[in-house]
């Protein structure tokens, strides 16, 4: 294992038991992220992005969720094997998480300051007063006046709440931040504010970040690496430039073509036919094969392995296997 990798996920499988059947939310997922790197994690609804993030944090609700197999190495240690106590030390301190919806990620009955202090007091050995001062400092950092530290979440707007959440996640200067669609619920102008804030803070603190999103525009803005996810596994992984200039997997291509462009006029968008698979359906062969315009006979039978197009760019598709 290379040492510059901060986080490395190997063959992760997560399932959920539901009324309809077993949902294979994450299927043999492989992923890695180095120090000070920002990884964009892109995929449609239900692709398993959140599940992956929760697996890293060891927060998959069990039942109904279950991590079937796989390893998640964080600084050389398998997070799935260490004790709960040790994991709690890592949660928040080394890895912190920002949730999708700022409206629901803050406890409505606790003051903002208390919620930030909770994080600080858990991981730093300081008293309440110092923690409070630190919380105020963090609020200022994300652009909220410290006078508002004692307000309740409902007194804040969506963008401010998301900034508070960011402040909480930064409180212990973690090595890795997992941000699960941090701006999806926000308006464009506010999204721009929050994104630029995140970018600045990331640069300032030198943290690594996994940014989960379905918006390729957002990825273009702040990520270094991109992983495209489809039906529970990563189908393409590359540095941002490589991916945007040379999208290789048919799904990635379709994704790019589906987006209305701002700078060109086109009559019709190119669409990916069909629908994403049902979560409970088990598709033999490549999961994308029913929608793939280049589908070959082989794709319906075998699962494609990883093909490296380049040192920093791999894709799971038979089209590239022999090149």
């Amino acid at each position, binding site marked *: 294992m290379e040492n510059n990798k901060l986080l490395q996920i190997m063959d992760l499988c997560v399932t959920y038991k539901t009324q309809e059947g077993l949902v294979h939310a994450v299927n043999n997922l492989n992923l890695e992220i180095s120090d000070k790197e920002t990884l964009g994690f892109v995929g449609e609804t239900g692709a398993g992005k959140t599940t992956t993030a929760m697996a890293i944090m060891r*927060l998959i609700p069990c039942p109904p969720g279950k991590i079937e197999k796989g390893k998640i190495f964080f600084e050389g240690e398998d997070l799935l094997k260490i004790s709960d106590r040790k994991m*709690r*030390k890592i949660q928040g301190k080394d890895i*912190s*998480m920002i949730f999708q919806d700022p409206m*629901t990620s803050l406890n409505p*009955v606790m003051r903002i300051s208390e919620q930030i202090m909770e*994080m600080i007091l*858990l991981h730093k050995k300081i008293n309440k007063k110092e923690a409070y001062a630190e919380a105020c400092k963090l609020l200022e950092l994300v652009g909220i006046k410290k006078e508002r530290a004692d307000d309740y979440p409902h007194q804040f707007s969506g963008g401010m709440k998301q900034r508070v959440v960011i402040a909480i996640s930064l409180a212990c200067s973690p090595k890795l931040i997992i941000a699960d669609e941090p701006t999806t619920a926000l308006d464009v102008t506010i999204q721009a504010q929050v994104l630029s804030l995140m970018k600045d803070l990331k640069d300032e603190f030198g943290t690594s970040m996994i940014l989960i999103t379905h918006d390729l525009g957002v990825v273009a803005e702040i990520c270094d690496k991109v992983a495209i996810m489809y039906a529970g596994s990563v189908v393409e992984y590359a540095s941002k430039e490589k991916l945007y200039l040379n999208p290789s997997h048919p799904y990635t291509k379709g994704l790019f073509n589906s987006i209305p462009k701002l700078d060109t006029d086109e009559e019709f968008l190119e669409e990916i036919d069909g629908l994403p698979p049902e979560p409970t359906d088990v598709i033999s062969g490549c999961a994308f094969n029913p929608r793939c315009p280049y589908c070959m006979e082989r794709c319906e039978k075998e699962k494609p392995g990883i093909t490296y197009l380049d040192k920093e760019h791999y894709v799971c598709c038979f089209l590239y296997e022999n090149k």
Partner: protein
Amino acid sequence: MSKYLVKRIGYLFVTIAIVSFIVFMMLFFTPGDPATLILGNMSTEEAREAMREQLGLNSPFLVQYFNFVKDLVLHQDLGTSYITQRPVLQEILEVVPNTLILSFVAIVIAVVFGVALGIISAVRQYSLIDAIVTVFAMIGISAPIFWYGLLMILLFSVQLGWFPPSGFDTPSQMFLPCLALGIQSMSMIARMTRSSMLEIIRMDFVKMARAKGQKEVWVILSHVFRNALIPVITVIGLQFGMLLCGALFLEVIFSIPGLGRLMIESIKMRDYPVVMGGVFFMSLCVTIVNLITDICYALVDPKIAKS
């Protein structure tokens, strides 16, 4: 907040005024002649007529109601019982402490155990203990209170002889009725706590608290519980009306001198002033408890505190 309180209290008075009117109207149209009941069936018609005159039962409905309100407002007087000829207020105040003690102890039992059981079963959803609590709660809600009150007497007083079956002076006398009354509300509260906890437990901020590295116990207590409390408080408030009804049965079964029994007897005896007073008092209690729950609400939920 104070403005809110003033408004609420104003509303409370309006409610009670209308409640009293409705009850008065209902009593007015209730068959049964108080004079006959007071004097007994051996009395003469003249005596009864005189009694009706004396009680003001011959005046039209609105006049009677007006007199009632007048006495209430001018003299803070609920009138005199037809039967015992004592001031209604005194009659009520004599029995009300027992009812209140009964309800209060029951609600404390209910809240303490109900909430605890609710939390446990929510946290251990689908576990054995959850199943046990759920079944227990279902039993508590479904079993008629007058039945298990009786069974409790049968078991604890008759078979085991641990607690006396009647009276309400000593703690040992109070134990059984309070427990019986508490069980029912406890079941309600346990279930409510469970479901509202389960709803909250799925929310993002709970995951967030866990992601902070917080211990599960604290996640539950400091994040989930306080939020889950809000609907639970409503239930507790609503429970109070039910509790007064349950208390009524237990007052009958355990021979406790309480408001419920006074009411039943007065209704049967057409002792209108006492009935009016009792309804008045019960509505007052219910409304005050609602007010208190609303205030607790505000204390727990900062959103409401503001407005």
